[in-house]
């Protein structure tokens, strides 16, 4: 990067907030995918005004800008290009307001999701979206990717909680969208468009999120099955029976083994699949619901059922679920996390198809995920240094996508399109849909400065 441009960046954010040395930049070349690109400079802004100036500079010099939160993404959304600016939002990490009369909070994008949840919890409120990486990832990244998580089954995903945004547009102007009201139909719903735009349409600098009162009680159950199909049927039966647990997670045998290997917490190793089910709400409600949950599981031939009796046991079960993503790497070093999602009624069929694909291409394909909302995570664990296997992996991924779309599902439930799924986007949205997306992008980012090469 030219010294004059570096100097300009330094004059905007200060010397300490510009990293230009190679060794520092290496550490911003990755996210949680296997994609890599070393940005030519890493910048840490702290205000929307600074970001606006950076975007104006970038447009003048035609330098691409790549917003980044904590770098935990699973689709390559935060990966920069070799000639680009990595714009790291983590310094903007203030919780500006928590309001229990309007049931909302106003936060900066760099706030870590778990920190926000802890802060609202302290005053009896609840922010449900819980992506697996919540202890690390940031709210800004969650909004940009429209992150989900286990609790989406009952409570919805990030976009269901975003009331308003402050954003810096790709040409360097500051704009506010939405607001602080539950209802708002003024103009186009730009807030929803920006949520899940994966950093391609604007840089989020402030977020107003709606909150819920904290559920008083929770009950968590770990349920084992001898057949994967029985676990899958339990999920659709549960939904059909009118019980909506807060979370309904599934793990197959391979996944359970990896987690047990890593945490050694006594998970059942003799079952084919487990469901992790949590109900929440008022005391009388959860007590009634956990009985219903048990009934549905027994009706579907579960072989073991363990209900956590205290907070420590409950935390243990969740630690097991959160450990999955890292633990499966034991099988092979390269992990490709897919999140093809199907309508809930199609879960048993999708589980079968994924198993067939795994056998057909002879690859490790541990299956886990948010069964309750149809968001499975068929995760390919492979070795990127083995070209022969990687070729099979490519084919398997394509077949998983085809299967999901055939069942009226989607390519991605919560990880986003980013770089990894970009070639397949047109399969789902069609030529017309793709042109529509491209037209929107071109209208707001005529120089294609903001996160180019992603999504469309």
């Amino acid at each position, binding site marked *: 990067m030219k010294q004059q441009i570096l100097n300009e960046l330094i004059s905007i954010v200060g010397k300490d907030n510009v990293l230009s040395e190679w*060794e520092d930049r*290496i550490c911003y070349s990755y996210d*949680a995918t296997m994609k890599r690109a070393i940005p030519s400079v890493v910048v840490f802004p702290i205000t929307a005004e600074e970001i606006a100036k950076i975007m104006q500079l970038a447009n003048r010099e035609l330098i691409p800008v790549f917003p980044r939160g904590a*770098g935990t993404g699973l689709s390559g959304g935060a990966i920069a290009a070799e000639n680009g600016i990595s714009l790291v939002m983590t310094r903007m990490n203030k919780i500006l307001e928590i309001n229990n009369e309007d049931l909302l909070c106003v936060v900066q994008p760099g706030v870590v999701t778990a920190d926000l949840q802890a802060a609202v919890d302290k005053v009896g409120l609840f922010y449900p979206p819980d992506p697996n990486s919540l202890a690390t990832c940031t709210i800004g990244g969650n909004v940009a990717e429209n992150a989900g998580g286990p609790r989406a089954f009952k409570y919805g995903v990030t976009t269901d909680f975003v009331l308003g945004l402050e954003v810096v547009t790709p040409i360097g102007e500051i704009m506010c969208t939405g607001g602080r009201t539950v209802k708002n139909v003024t103009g186009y719903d730009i807030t929803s468009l920006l949520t899940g735009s994966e950093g391609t349409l604007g840089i989020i600098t402030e977020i107003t999120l709606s909150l819920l009162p904290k559920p008083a009680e929770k009950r968590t159950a770990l349920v084992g099955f001898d057949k994967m199909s029985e676990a899958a049927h339990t999920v659709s039966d549960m939904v059909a029976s009118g019980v909506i647990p807060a979370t309904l997670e599934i793990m197959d045998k391979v996944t359970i083994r990896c987690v047990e290997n890593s*945490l050694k917490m006594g998970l059942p190793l003799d079952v084919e699949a487990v469901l992790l089910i949590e109900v929440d709400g008022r005391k009388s409600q959860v007590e009634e619901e956990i009985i219903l949950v048990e009934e549905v599981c027994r009706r579907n031939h579960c072989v073991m059922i363990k209900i956590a009796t205290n907070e420590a046991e409950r935390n243990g079960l969740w630690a097991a679920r*959160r450990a999955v993503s*890292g633990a499966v790497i*034991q099988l092979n070093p390269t992990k490709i996390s897919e999140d093809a999602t199907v309508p809930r009624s199609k879960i048993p069929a999708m589980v079968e198809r994924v198993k067939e694909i795994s056998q057909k291409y002879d690859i490790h394909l541990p299956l886990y995920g948010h069964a309750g909302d149809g968001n499975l995570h068929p995760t390919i664990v492979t070795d990127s240094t083995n070209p022969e296997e990687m070729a099979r992996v490519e084919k398997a991924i394509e077949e998983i996508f085809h299967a999901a779309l055939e069942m009226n599902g989607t390519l991605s439930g919560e990880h986003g399109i980013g770089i990894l799924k970009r070639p397949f986007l047109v399969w789902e949205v069609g030529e017309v849909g793709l042109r529509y997306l491209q037209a929107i992008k071109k209208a707001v980012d005529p120089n294609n400065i903001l996160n180019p090469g992603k999504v469309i």
Partner: protein
Amino acid sequence: MRDNKDKKSPLGQEGNAYLAELDKCGRCGNCLPNCPVFAELQRESSVIRGRVEILDRLRKGEVEWNEKLAEIFSTCMLCGNCTKACNSGVRGGLLTRMARRDIRKFLGPQKPKDNALFRILCETGKEPAFCSPDELAAVGSNLPNLAKEEFLRKLSSKLPKSPIKPKMTIAYFPGCMTYLVNPQIGYDILEILAAYDVKVIIPEQKCCGKQAMMEGDFDTAKEVAAKNITSFAKEEFDYLLFECGSCLTTWQEYQELLPDAGAQSLIAKGMHISRFLTEVLDIHFDYPATIAPGKKVTYHDACHLKETTSGKSAPRELLKRMAPYYQYAEMALADSCCGSIGYFGDFHFDLSQKILQKKIDSILETKADIVTADSSCCLINLIYGLREHPEVEVKHIVELVAEALRQSL
């Protein structure tokens, strides 16, 4: 461009074992919220995820060791939190130490590694006088004044008499804090054990080697380890006791460091004094009925001790048993690092102080009269951090036990 073989890369026979660790990392970022240094610096290069990426590129020959990388790899306290948090089993501490070994090999020892203080401790600290507190203060050191008279200097007059019919024999490995800063810790241990008819032997010893290992100086570490093993192997004992968590965990690594030296049979008997007192001696305190509720005590978990068997539970159990003479109150974030393991506070004084301040705030919030811990580095750092709060005493847990026993019937 030099030949690839000459590159300053972590290659060579010994390097390969640890390079396999790199393949386990999926860059998930679970280490970030668990790293006390990342919490302060907020830079990917300060946490193991970034360092794995650097080492991976070193392995591929894309980058070579240089001063910048030496600086990056120096900002790790080796607290072990990232290793514990990693679901993929990446041993972050191992990678950092091996990286430091390479840096040492290619760039030489990093300052202030070879300062006078380092030599004192590595050479068993027999002559503590040659590093004055003024000299330490001048370099921004958190180190306290050294004891006027090191532990066991007045051996005959201070050692309690050996029991006539001992019920067991223990070998005691005093840490550097006991030798150099506060010998009372050692004397209190001798007093407690004598009261329970335990015979104590203190074989000749060197520094455990923790600091050397942390700096990647495995030659020194092996040297002191070999001497310690030889010396302790000559004695007969039932347990090998440590009053410092770092010495204990270093001994636990001797077997891997020197596979043929016979460390395993010695360290199999090893445990921390808190665990020994609660689980082996099952110590209890019978106070007079009239005893009034005493001082409020809070406990700080030492990073290395907390990962050992009963490392978190035994000290707390001991504190609870001492009630009501001491009233135990758990502080928030009790198990977060105090900011100085080994000489981290000397290498990165300002950074260490920022981490320490969080711990001090936590301690003060409890309004405790005493903060107790059981590792040398933590005690030294807490004394420094509380220098403007004389109302809070910093004590090793055995000092409290000895005092509570004196109050017992």
